[in-house]
């Protein structure tokens, strides 16, 4: 396998853009990445386009990638459509990485795009329910419910087990809202207080509105190429993909004590990159519900079970900390256009590693970073998709 570098990234701001179809959202992200990389449309050998809900919500059931890319002037090359729920964009990046790592392509493009605001939130919520297996969603199971009480996540039981309080649950949302307030691309830019988060209306007990990521439109893209030709296109520092791991959930009966898949995918990524959690300088992770960030600290090996809130209390994961987590604002503040999120995470890490993150720039420029992305739900009592990417400069 060849070494692969990210040489360009681009993103559309995240938010509510009623008048923009998928292709209009993707265009500035794609050309942002092409221009950033210094590559021409004709340099791109292959493209992977991640999107989750566009079929149901826009009616463009097939060939969304081809539609989106033609609008941006990219035709003729192999274009692969990727649907992997909230991890669609990380899966698209893995496709692009694999094309180049294998030698099949020299330059590949990964795109993630999602249009969730369609003027009818009930439709959007129903479409989102469809990233759970039908046997669950047809019974009216809410995706948010899975974060509250699903066996392998079960934030509610963590309150009882570790004595976590509603204020602890609010801490990641408060931390990330500050980061997001410094991010011009973020959907929600108001710094929040613990009281505001705890007292916002209950969505699925014990999760409140301001602990939940919201309905977002957005897009992101990355250009990857073989590391040995990275400097041919651009004078910017290439960012090496040290590992890009994709796993699916595992069927689990109750009392299954094997490590969960967020852990196994992260440790597979550490192993392939030849590092451990102690080597990381910054993280973007999948805080679809803010308190899940506390649980992911454990799964990524950053702390012992139950110790998550301390990492925020002790300013470890804050923007001024030793290991900032979600400097972009994360899913709750920056926004969660589901099929774009994995690449929005990558964009943020690349900007931070290059020192291009503006007001939210981590003071000591990160050299080793990790993006963790997950999505979907099966009856087998695990999330459906786990992606973990480690970058090195």
């Amino acid at each position, binding site marked *: 396998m060849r070494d692969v570098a990210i040489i360009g990234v681009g993103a559309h701001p995240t938010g509510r853009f009623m008048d923009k179809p998928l292709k209009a959202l993707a265009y500035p992200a794609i050309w942002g990445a092409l221009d950033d990389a210094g590559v021409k449309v004709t340099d791109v050998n292959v493209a992977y386009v991640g999107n989750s809900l566009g079929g149901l919500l826009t009616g463009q059931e097939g060939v969304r990638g081809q539609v989106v890319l033609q609008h941006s002037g990219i035709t003729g090359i192999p274009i692969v459509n990727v649907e992997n729920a909230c991890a669609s964009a990380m899966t698209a990046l893995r496709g692009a990485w694999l094309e180049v790592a294998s030698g099949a392509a020299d330059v590949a493009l990964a795109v993630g795009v999602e249009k969730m605001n369609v003027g009818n939130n009930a439709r959007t919520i*129903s479409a989102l329910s469809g990233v759970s297996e039908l046997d669950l969603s047809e019974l009216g199971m809410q995706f948010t*419910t899975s974060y509250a*009480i699903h066996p392998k996540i079960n934030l509610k039981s963590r309150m009882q087990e570790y004595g976590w309080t509603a204020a602890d649950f609010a801490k990641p949302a408060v931390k990330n809202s500050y980061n997001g307030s410094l991010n011009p691309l973020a959907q929600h830019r108001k710094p929040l207080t613990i009281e505001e988060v705890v007292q916002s209306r209950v969505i699925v007990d014990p999760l409140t509105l301001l602990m939940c990521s919201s309905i977002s439109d957005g897009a992101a893209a990355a250009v990857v190429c073989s590391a040995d030709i990275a400097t041919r296109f651009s004078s910017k520092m290439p960012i090496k993909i040290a590992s890009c791991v994709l796993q699916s959930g595992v069927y689990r009966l109750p009392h299954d004590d094997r490590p969960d898949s967020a852990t196994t995918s992260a440790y597979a990524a550490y192993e392939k990159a030849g590092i451990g959690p102690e080597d990381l300088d910054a993280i973007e992770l999948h805080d679809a519900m803010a308190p899940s960030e506390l649980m992911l600290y454990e799964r990524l090996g950053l702390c012992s079970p139950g110790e998550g809130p301390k990492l925020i209390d002790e300013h470890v994961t804050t923007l001024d900390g030793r290991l900032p987590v979600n400097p972009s604002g994360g899913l709750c503040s920056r926004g969660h256009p589901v099929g774009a999120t994995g690449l929005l995470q990558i964009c943020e890490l690349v900007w931070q590693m290059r020192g291009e993150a503006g007001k939210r720039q981590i003071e000591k420029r990160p050299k080793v970073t990790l993006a963790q992305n997950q999505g979907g739900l099966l009856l087998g009592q695990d999330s459906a998709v786990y992606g973990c990417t480690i970058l090195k400069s």
Partner: protein
Amino acid sequence: MKILNPDNLRVSTEPGATPCLLGNRCQQCGTIVFPKMPVCPSCHRNGAMEEVEIGRTGRLYSHTIAHFAPKGFIAPSFQAFIDLPEGPRVFSLIGSKYPVERGVLEDGMEMRLIVEPLADTPEHRDELTYKYVPASKANGAKA
């Protein structure tokens, strides 16, 4: 009225019969799964699964109250996972006679299976499915 998923739920009309879920048991390793699947997820043997009646009773593993609902469903609603004595842990709604309030359910309590319409909405009024309710009659069920 029709059964939403007749492959998963047995509603017998015989006197004294109680409804139950239909799962699969692996004839090689004994693993029981719900819903059915042709390949055992534990030992990966193909074609060794037989149908078994399960889930007449269970234990409440965890529950929450959802304060919004997708189209065709009602909020607030209880959402729950039930541990079945046969092995599987299943997602379930809670019988509609129970007020959707904190304190009505307690994790760990014994539950039993009932059959009722999926939701009292035009979309789902005529679809029968399984739900669980507390096994004891206390807990403030409405008559």
